[in-house]
């Protein structure tokens, strides 16, 4: 049985690496793939990195994309339009807090829709 994959998109490579470190402490067995920074590693985003991350995170449960600012969302949506997979969705939620909750929910075997909902509502819960 597989778990919903998580893709973390940030203008900063460090941000997504750090979030993954935090997630991994609590959730060892959920696909978490990173797309931080531009193609040359500076501050920005890159659609190819996002496409690769989707590819690596994908399984039959689907993949959710989390982003930080402006162009990260545009590139995330572009990547979703470009992929042939169906269950790939951009989530409008705070990057760190949303992805953390999503990883935990995914680890519990929840569906794409359930995981997305939990992530979107992360600031209502607490």
């Amino acid at each position: 049985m597989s778990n919903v994959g998580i893709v973390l998109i940030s203008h900063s490579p460090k941000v997504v690496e750090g979030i993954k470190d935090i997630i991994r402490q609590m959730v060892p067995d959920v696909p978490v793939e990173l797309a931080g920074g531009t193609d040359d590693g500076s501050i920005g985003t890159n659609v190819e990195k996002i496409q690769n991350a989707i590819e690596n995170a994908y399984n039959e449960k689907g993949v959710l994309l989390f982003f930080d600012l402006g162009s990260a969302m545009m590139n995330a949506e572009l990547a979703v339009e470009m992929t042939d997979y169906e269950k790939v969705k951009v989530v409008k939620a705070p990057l760190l807090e949303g992805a953390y909750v999503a990883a935990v929910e995914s680890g519990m075997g929840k569906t794409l829709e359930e995981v997305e909902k939990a992530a979107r509502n992360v600031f209502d819960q607490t």
Partner: protein
Amino acid sequence: MELQIKQVISWMEKTNEKIQSNKEYLTSLDQAIGDGDHGLNMARGFQEVVNKLSSSNYTYVSDVLKDVSMTLLSKVGGASGPLYGTAFLKMSTALKGIETVDYPQFKKAVVEAVNGVKERGKANKGEKTMIDVWEPIVDFLQKQDNLEAKELESTAEKAMEATQDLKATKGRAAYLKERSIGHLDPGSVSSYYIFAALSEVLEEGA
């Protein structure tokens, strides 16, 4: 008007020249109401575009535009990457299979491009983005039966200048709210270069 592969490549080369020589200027505009990388983003992106085009062979205009799109998408790290990438991709799709682009076809391609940008950016005219140059250009094209190169340029210039008085409600400058007023929108200035370059190509071709 007529656009063939040669002109499209020349269009991109002239755009690149303008962007390279105004790199610092674009940077300073983006420093005022953004994150200061628009000069770098555009200079890197269009240099790669020109490199790519000069090292490839093309049969259709749409293939050139597709490469422009893909290069900007992968090499521009800011919002202008997916936005210009989408614009050129939409043009490419609209002109698929055409060897010599005529005016009605070109018009349609630009209309598709601006629609793509608006969708990608979830933005409309008046929000102090590049759309404030692209949409007036579409309006201008719609009104003409033949393309006046000089007027194309002056329309783009006026539209670009008009962004100074707008308050940003999309893109990074939107974080600054009222403080964004009184500054030109960087993406509108780079869009102006794109249309100014096109105008020059059309003039030469005329």
